[in-house]
């Protein structure tokens, strides 16, 4: 059974595209067949982050308008056989996306893929509501920062009101993904901690992605972080999150940082 996942946040710049690429690649690395769709019409970036920017021929709007077939617009990842990208249009108007058109594309993708991951644009306008419209589950990307948490709260409200699932009276599955987390700063009380964010948003946690320079390096190279450096702390956090998405029980750890924290504590005690 295919599962449609929307990666959303309300606020821009919190890591939706990075997370879409990383989770998509992480799921594909376990053999799942994954399609990632960029819904950010006019400001597409998923192609760039995944290193496929020079291979874009057709896009989502071409497919919605019947100019191209889904199979013509899908770009297969060079590194992973089971990972595919459906890019957004860079030149068209975002109003060219229609609800019925998006419904048809997703319906078709459901036949051939295990996961369809929709990378939502920022905001709460048409692009964002269309990206979440047909989702079975949502990943809400949040930074431990007041404006991001507030916007996530708003998006959670929209997920419970505007998705097809919610309108049918069903519950859309929601997962929090906290990105750019710095456990040291949180410990010192300089940053909202995980408990605070979960307490405020009362949504189950999918993963904690630690702040890391590796994320920028991955986007510079044009590879999802889980492929660029699978041993890095953020990559391990995304791989754990992907396992949880598949129903696995994985203990929640803050990767790469725990040891350092212990070392610090020892040093302080000595």
């Amino acid at each position, binding site marked *: 059974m295919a599962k449609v996942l929307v990666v959303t946040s309300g606020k821009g710049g919190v890591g939706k595209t990075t997370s879409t690429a990383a989770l998509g690649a992480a799921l594909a690395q376990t053999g799942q067949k994954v399609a990632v769709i960029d819904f950010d019409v006019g400001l597409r970036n998923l192609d760039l982050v995944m290193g496929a920017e020079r291979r874009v021929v057709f896009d989502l709007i071409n497919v919605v308008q019947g100019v191209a077939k889904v199979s013509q617009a899908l770009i297969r990842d060079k590194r992973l056989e089971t990972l595919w990208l459906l890019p957004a249009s860079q030149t068209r108007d975002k109003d060219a996306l229609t609800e019925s058109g998006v419904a048809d594309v997703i319906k078709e993708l459901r036949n051939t893929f295990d996961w369809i991951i929709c990378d939502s644009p920022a905001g709460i306008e048409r692009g964002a509501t269309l990206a979440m419209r047909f989702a079975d589950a949502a990943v809400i990307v949040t930074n431990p920062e*007041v404006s991001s*948490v507030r916007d996530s709260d708003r998006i959670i*409200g929209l997920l419970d009101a505007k998705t097809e699932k919610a309108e049918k009276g069903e519950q859309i599955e929601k997962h929090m993904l906290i990105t750019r987390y710095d456990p040291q700063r949180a410990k010192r009380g300089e940053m909202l901690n995980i408990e*605070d964010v979960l307490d*405020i948003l009362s949504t189950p946690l999918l993963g904690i992605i630690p702040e890391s320079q590796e994320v920028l390096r991955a986007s510079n190279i044009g590879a999802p972080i889980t492929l660029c450096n699978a041993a890095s702390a953020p990559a391990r956090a995304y791989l754990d999150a992907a396992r949880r998405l598949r129903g696995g029980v994985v203990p929640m750890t803050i990767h790469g940082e725990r040891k350092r924290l212990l070392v610090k504590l020892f040093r302080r005690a000595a």
Partner: protein
Amino acid sequence: MTLFNLFSRRQGSAPLARDRLQILLSHERSVCSKSDLIGVLREEVVTVLCKHVPVGQDNVTIRMDRGATLSMLEIEVLIHTPPAR
């Protein structure tokens, strides 16, 4: 202010962020859900009433006052009675 600075330096600013968010969101959630609730109520009340008496969307007023311990829902329906013969 100096006292506050001393306090916040010791504690960090995260607790303040959490408290501000909790207050703000509890307000925003009540505003959002209230407007939704009232819209839905109005629609459903009109549908039910229409089965028995002729009322329009404009003849139904719904107000809600939320208090700390007690909230009041007020539904006002105007029904035009035909002139008596």
